[in-house]
């Protein structure tokens, strides 16, 4: 059962504390009151307050100092300040320090009720999010992959539909989006789940060893082949072979792979004997493989053979609504791994994570949270914990050249690059020229040629 949220009330007027208790108790809160700000601050660490109602003007310590201390100790705690003397400057300061609201006395109970119930909903939402036993979360997951957004739910639906049938599939998406996870899900949900799932990263294999890795070799096939070796196709017989970064596959190996896919037979290097294999191939790439094939850099026939079904994994920036769920899952994972009492992230930290660009997608988010959890000290990751683990913001992407932009000829690339460097150097031509490796005169000539006015 969920515990009741804890409300901490701090005011030097006992009558006011009794009044708050009388109101907030029936509203579903456990209420702890303290008539001394000093004493309350000394006990903050042992009071896991969810909401605090703090008087602004107290004889020993001011409410703003209490607010600062609470933000420090319990960043997830929502603080409401109360005052008998409303003043604009202290109200602004309170909001700057992250107070939820600023109420004047006599208290407006309707407003307080709204604030408390929205705070309570927020607490319950976060508790549900963090609960590993959450039924809905499991229903919406796919083999451990998290995605409640429509695009991901559509992708999961497609995976479920094709998994029992497809012999080959192509997973596309930017780096870090979770292409291997999708490949594993296809394997898990298909009839081969009891058999092996093997992976090879095509960008990590030396060109001369590719054939031997994929198809195996016999003793004496080449210098150094002192033993027989089973290739990945044979090892994965009956199961699934995942070819990551398929776009990096050398042309000669592409031809051989195509033959294996078409005939269902492999031949070890140095052997004349062909062996039947039954392997489901899932390939993945972060390149635009169709364009690569059209440009002749990837075999067209192999592309069509692999692309029986194409599954596109969207970048994280196109499914930001999934971020809170991913964050909750990663925090849970790393808190357990590092044996830290971290339970979640503060509201401001969550906002920061929601707004980041994530060029490295889910993998980058995971790495940031791993670092943040490793360094964290409290129950809750604060904005500062997260901020120090986020990479420095890159210059605005709008002016940066991108491989998919329409103008990819050298001239427009040069123009875009000059614009980008000028932007980074805030229009300072001397600095931009130095960065571009040009003299100032040359830079001026290029600006003129490209019709760039600054």
């Amino acid at each position, binding site marked *: 059962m969920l515990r009741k949220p804890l409300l901490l009330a701090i005011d030097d*007027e*006992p*009558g*006011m504390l009794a*009044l708050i208790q*009388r*109101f907030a108790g029936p509203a579903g809160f456990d209420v702890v009151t303290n008539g001394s700000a000093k004493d309350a601050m000394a006990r903050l660490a042992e009071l896991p307050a969810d909401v605090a109602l703090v008087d602004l*003007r107290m004889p020993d310590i001011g409410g703003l100092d209490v607010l600062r201390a609470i933000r420090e100790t319990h960043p997830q705690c929502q603080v409401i300040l109360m005052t*008998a*003397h409303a003043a604009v400057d202290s109200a602004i300061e309170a909001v700057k320090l992250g107070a939820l609201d600023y109420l004047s*006395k*006599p*208290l407006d*109970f309707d407003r307080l009720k709204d604030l408390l119930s929205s705070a309570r909903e927020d607490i319950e939402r976060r508790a549900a999010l963090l609960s590993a036993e959450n039924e809905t979360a499991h229903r919406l997951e796919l083999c451990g992959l998290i995605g409640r957004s429509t695009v991901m739910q559509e992708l999961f639906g497609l995976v479920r539909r094709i998994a029992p049938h497809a012999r080959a599939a192509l997973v596309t998406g930017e780096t870090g989006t979770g292409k291997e996870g999708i490949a594993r899900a296809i394997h898990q949900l298909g009839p081969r789940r009891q058999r092996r799932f093997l992976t090879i990263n095509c960008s990590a294999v030396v060109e001369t060893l590719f054939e031997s890795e994929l198809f195996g070799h016999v003793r004496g096939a080449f210098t150094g082949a002192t033993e027989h070796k089973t290739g990945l196709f044979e090892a994965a017989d009956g199961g699934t072979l995942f070819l990551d970064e398929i776009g990096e596959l050398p042309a000669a190996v592409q031809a051989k792979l195509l033959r294996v896919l078409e005939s269902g037979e492999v031949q070890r290097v140095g052997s004349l004997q062909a062996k039947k294999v039954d392997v489901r191939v899932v390939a993945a790439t972060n390149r635009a493989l169709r364009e690569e094939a059209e440009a002749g850099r990837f075999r067209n026939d192999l592309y069509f053979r692999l692309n029986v079904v194409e599954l596109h994994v969207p970048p994280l920036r196109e499914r930001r609504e999934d971020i809170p769920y991913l964050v909750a899952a990663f925090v849970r994972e790393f808190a357990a791994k590092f044996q830290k009492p971290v339970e979640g992230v503060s509201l401001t930290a969550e906002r920061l994570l929601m707004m980041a660009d994530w060029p490295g997608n889910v993998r980058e988010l995971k790495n940031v949270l791993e670092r943040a959890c490793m360094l964290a000290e409290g129950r809750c990751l604060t904005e500062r914990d997260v901020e120090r683990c986020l990479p420095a913001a890159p210059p605005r992407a709008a002016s940066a050249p991108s491989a998919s932009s329409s103008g990819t000829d050298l001239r427009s690339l040069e123009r875009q690059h000059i614009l980008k460097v000028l932007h980074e150097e805030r229009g300072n031509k001397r600095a931009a020229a130095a960065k571009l490796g040009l003299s100032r005169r040359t830079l001026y000539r290029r600006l003129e040629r490209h019709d760039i006015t600054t």
Partner: protein
Amino acid sequence: MSERPRDPAPCGRLGDTEFEHTLRNQIAIVIGYCDLLLQEIRQDDPLRRDVVEMHKAASTAIAMLRDQGESV
């Protein structure tokens, strides 16, 4: 018998900020209890009229204090 107040009331007069602050807080407590009672007492309960009167008087006192503060 009613309880005695915890401390003797601070000596002061209108125009003294500390004194006004304490007074405002005390009246805010009265108004707060009246608000809670008014939410709980049924519309046709004769006690309701008494609470409304208390609320009215305390609100007038707070307004007077506010005017006083502004005129200083």
